[in-house]
């Protein structure tokens, strides 16, 4: 029931039956790491990390706290350097943050002195998006995230769930092709988390971004992902890769009720040593 091999997403399209002998060039993986190592002083944070995330694929990274998940995300985001191996985005070595990559951090990144609208449009302002396009993008995102009514509120007036939604809005405003998320719902209660999972699923199903989601919630990973990478600590490495073969489009009621959903959750729990 659980395959540990990567799913066979078609990378080339055979159009021979159209009489055109032509093979579409396989697009470079959106995110790729090969033999990646990272140390902090003498502490080995990541060892020999190998994975790829294909165009429009949703991949979650599960692992115990302190195993190097955030470190891995920071490397992919171009925020910190690495020692050896390679990290690439669309085939280009990662050296600095890129405009086509949006990042949602573990802590929400609202500036307390700005309104929700100003916070959401921050990235657009920093990257000098023209005012007209910016306003349209922000309006749309506030609407998608049901934050329109709170556009003029300040972050401390929002609930934790709304702040986290606004944080995602901060990343979405630039409409990045690639979205990196570091435990975006980690600080929320289970109910709010489930709701935001559904919202995230809806957004992803509409926009089909390439997503790398770091989480410590097994159910969240299974519900959202095409594939789940499981990490172990000391040193941080990827120990298991599970393809989540649940049909899409998924939705809250039916997907979570599928027997396979429970099987994936149980299996990943066993892999991570939390279930027996």
């Amino acid at each position, binding site marked *: 029931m659980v395959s540990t091999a990567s799913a066979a997403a078609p990378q080339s399209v055979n159009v021979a039956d159209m009489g055109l002998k032509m093979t579409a060039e396989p697009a470079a993986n959106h995110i790729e790491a090969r033999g990646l190592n990272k140390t902090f002083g003498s502490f080995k944070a990541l060892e020999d990390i190998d994975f790829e995330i294909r165009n429009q694929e949703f991949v979650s990274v599960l692992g115990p706290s302190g195993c190097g998940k955030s470190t891995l995300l920071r490397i992919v985001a171009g*925020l910190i350097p690495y020692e050896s191996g390679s990290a690439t985005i669309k085939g280009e070595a990662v050296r600095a943050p890129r405009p086509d990559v949006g990042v949602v951090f573990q802590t929400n990144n609202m500036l*307390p002195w700005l309104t929700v609208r100003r916070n959401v449009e921050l990235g657009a302002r*920093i990257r000098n998006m023209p005012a007209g396009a910016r306003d349209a993008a922000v309006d749309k995102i506030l609407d998608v995230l049901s934050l329109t009514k709170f556009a003029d509120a300040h972050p401390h007036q929002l609930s934790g769930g709304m702040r986290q939604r606004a944080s995602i809005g*901060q990343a979405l405003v630039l409409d990045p092709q690639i979205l990196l998320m570091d435990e975006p719902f980690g600080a929320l209660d289970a109910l709010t988390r489930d709701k935001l999972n559904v919202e995230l699923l809806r957004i992803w199903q509409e926009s089909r971004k390439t997503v790398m989601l770091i989480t410590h919630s097994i159910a969240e990973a299974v519900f959202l992902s095409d594939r789940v990478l499981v990490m172990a600590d000391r040193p941080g490495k990827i120990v298991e890769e599970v393809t989540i073969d649940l049909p899409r489009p998924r939705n809250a009621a039916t997907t979570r009720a599928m027997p396979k959903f429970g099987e994936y959750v149980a299996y990943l729990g066993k892999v991570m040593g939390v279930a027996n």
Partner: protein
Amino acid sequence: MPGVSSRLAAYSQVVLFFGAFLLFWEYGVRYFEVKSYILPPISAIAVAVWEARSEIFENSMYTLAEVLIGFGAAVVVGVMLGMVVYVSPFAQRTIYPLVTALQTTPKSALAPLMIVWFGYGFISKVAMAFLFAFFPIVVATLGGFAGTAKNLEEHFRALNAGPWRTFTTLRLPSALPSFIDGCRVAMPLAMIGAIIGELVGSERGLGNLIMLGTASTRTDLVFGCIIVITLISLALYALIEFAAKSVWWRGIQV
């Protein structure tokens, strides 16, 4: 409304307390026959202030100008130095320890030197106000910049924000609450500096008036000047408090 009536009660307590204090002063000195060059009755002080009102007003404006210019210069130089020390590791290693060491120097001991350097006039008092106000402002500004949340800095880096954008959009607003706290401390200190300067050697100002009053045993006038100085200080402090209101995000963590 219990809120209003309890606040009214609090105000009336304050008024009653001050009223009782002033009455005690007025009739206490008479009853105990305190010599008026030691402590004049409050009514005599009021009369002395009224009679010397134009002189007191003129000297008040002079001292106020010293305080405001000294304070303003301390803000400008303090913020600039705070910024330089924050962005430059070299300045952090060299200038910052120097500033910290100088902070412990008793500034009043510098008053005679300021007079030697800048003369008996306006400039030496501005320098004194500056010296007193400067250190709390540098330290607070630096603390404000250094206290910029690390996760927000990383967020700005992830957006490829340039140094200027990061400064104006993130560091400056982050540092403002701390900076205002520094101003709160520095404003009364600037007044103290200016007055000490005037007491040590001056031709004009409220401190000078105090010296003249003391020399001619006009204790009523001396007390009048002290009260006026206190009132000006209070007004300046209230001004800072008012400005602090616009930096409402102090202590708010989201």
